[in-house]
């Protein structure tokens, strides 16, 4: 088991779960934690050398680019806009988790060969 992979996978999943908790119950702290976990997941994805690393990086960046403006809108008095952006990020995070699963399956089948 690779520690780096464990750490990245943990934050990818955590990015999704915190994102869900914000859209269910929108509040500033939840949104802030969502942004923190998403950015951590993106930073950990850099140069990971996975089969689908480009796709994973792209989904991470999409989620970040939704959530950072969401944070801005939330603290400038437009929480509705912020929630809708967080829904966008949620879609990207779902794809991200699916990609992690697909990548793991692909990698194990490549290793088997």
């Amino acid at each position, binding site marked *: 088991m690779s520690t780096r992979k464990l750490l990245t996978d943990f934050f990818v999943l955590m990015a999704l779960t915190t994102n869900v908790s914000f859209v269910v119950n929108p509040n*500033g*702290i939840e949104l*802030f934690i969502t942004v*923190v976990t998403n*950015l*951590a997941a993106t*930073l*950990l994805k*850099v*140069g*990971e*050398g996975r089969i689908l*690393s480009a796709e994973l990086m792209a989904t991470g960046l999409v989620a970040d680019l939704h959530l950072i403006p969401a*944070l801005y809108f*939330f*603290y400038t008095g437009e929480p509705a806009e912020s929630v809708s952006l967080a829904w966008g990020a949620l879609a990207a995070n779902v794809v991200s988790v699916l990609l992690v699963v697909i990548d793991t399956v692909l990698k194990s089948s490549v290793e088997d060969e």
Partner: protein
Amino acid sequence: MQRRKKRPRTRLRERYERRFYEILRELSIPLVILHFTLAAGTLGYMWLSGGDFINSFYMTVITIGTIGYGEVVRGSDSTAGRIFTTFLALGGIGVFTSTITVIARVLFKEELQNLWRRLSMMNAIDKLEEHYILAGFDEVTAELARLLERRGVPFVVLDDTREGLARIAARQLPYYLPEPPFEQETLLAAGIRRAGGLVVNLGDDARNISIIAVARLLRPGKDDFSIYSFASSPENAERLEELGANRAFYPGRMVAGRLAAYLFHPESDYLVTLFDRLAFGEETDVDLLEVAVEEGSPWAGRTVGELRAELGVNVVALRRPDGRLELDLNDRLVVKPGSRLLLFGRAARLEKLRERLEEAHEHA
């Protein structure tokens, strides 16, 4: 709908890109630690101030960035706030400075800069067409590169030896790949599929043979892709030609031939050097051009006099279909299909004629 031209992916590019991101990966852990320090500081001040995100983030940045404008967040001037700021500053300043150090060390790494330069160079090579590939960069190839540059002919140099790389660095060549020239992925990255020819000069016949073999597998046609090679002896030159080179040269014989030309024509020194300058591209204004007059060509069946008047260049020699060379050309001589003409004139004019003739042959 017009499809976008797909840029060819080569394994060499993938290797460079992978290494590039591997180096960048060194940044991720320090950045994640800095990220969590910022997050912890912001959360702490948000808790103290009752949720003031913007000011909490600002206060964290000015604290760990050693700016320290003051206690700008509500609650940070309390006892709990000051204890929190003390611990944040103690931990955060170290994290901040060491992260900046790592970023500077990674970004100024020579390998990263070289990889970036090579990737941009490969993007430029991908746009080249009908260029030449020079495999091996010794004094002779360096001189050839100078002549190609003078003529404005693009070329890509392949060399991975220390001497070759030092020569490349001294010449500041626009396109080169510091990889083993005889490897298929190097030749593909140099754009062999779109190139006009290859010059092989690796200083060793065995290495010359291996690159000729790889290049001929990728570009089998001798007519649309020329390979010129150096050889260590006249016998090996013949073998290299049999193995796929259009022409293989034994440098000793070439130099001796040129020297003999000077020795045999001591009075016509200007003429000998003129032909040298023409052949080696030094005389850029005038040039010689050899063209084939094929069946159906607009020039076939015309007289030399007509062609001289119409083309605006001088027809200096004609090689008949049976191989006989005619130098004393009469204006009434009819140019038969299968002949080859040697034209002499302004380089720009000759280039236009060559293009016109190629178009005529394509339509014929």
